[in-house]
């Protein structure tokens, strides 16, 4: 099976590494992992690259994760790409808000690789 190209958006470089490791531990084969420190950086990355999965924090400086999802449709490369939020903001209101903005999944920190697998694998539709 071919691996996927993923974009991880989080203002913490340590957390980006943890998310990448968790994806691999969840059995998701990654061909390329791109990183961005906030939503605005992520939009720039997506203008130059195609990915099949985006994992995104909510609370970030410059542009937060919810605003990032709202602007995602303006980037041709990103149309239809599933976004999974990974955040400490775990309230139902945040989940509803993220899903209504277009997120396909929602993972609360702290998390396990099994939780990543549970939320990410189904939306990849066999790509991993």
């Amino acid at each position, binding site marked *: 099976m071919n691996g996927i190209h993923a974009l991880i958006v989080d203002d913490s470089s340590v957390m980006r590494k943890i998310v990448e490791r968790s994806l691999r531990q969840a059995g998701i084969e990654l061909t390329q992992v791109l990183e961005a420190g906030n939503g605005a950086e992520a939009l720039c990355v997506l203008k130059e690259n195609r990915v099949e999965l985006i994992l995104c924090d909510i609370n970030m400086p410059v542009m937060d994760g919810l605003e990032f999802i709202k602007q995602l449709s303006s980037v041709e490369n990103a149309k239809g790409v599933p976004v999974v939020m990974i955040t400490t903001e775990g309230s139902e209101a945040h989940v509803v808000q993220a899903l209504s903005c277009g997120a396909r999944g929602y993972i609360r920190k*702290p998390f396990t690789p099994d939780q990543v697998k549970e939320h990410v694998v189904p939306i990849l539709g066999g790509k991993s």
Partner: protein
Amino acid sequence: MRSSVNEALAANGQHEAWTPLLELAAREVFELMLGCQLVPSTTPEEASLDVTSMVGLAGKLCGVLSLRCDGKSAALMASKMLGVEAEKVGPEVSDALGEVCNMIAGNFKNKISGLSEGCMLSVPTVITGTDYSLHSQADSPGLEVRLLFEGMPIAISLQIRR
């Protein structure tokens, strides 16, 4: 285990009931994200906890949650999060400690009914050194949990403004 923010705030600021939740929140973060168990600290620890990470809370609950440890502990936390040897960890230490504090704060507020929706977290701040005084508008005695991380003392505190 969940508690109600309104119940606790109505009870003359009897926030002590939240101490087990604060400890549980920390234990879960260390277990899930660092792969290690925190154990109770049975003796008062005099070690210098010279690295402090703080996250502010605003909304239904206002205050500051802090995590204090020494430099060796902070480096070990970063190494466990990154999956590298502690000697190879560099500037990521502050980032890692800030994230740990952020996750404890988020996990703690998500355990209290009514708080997860109505309480925002600030970005973490990390201070290194001991020669400083922290002046918070928090006006309650606050909660503190002292635990051992890989045999080294850490302190998790919550100062609350009523």
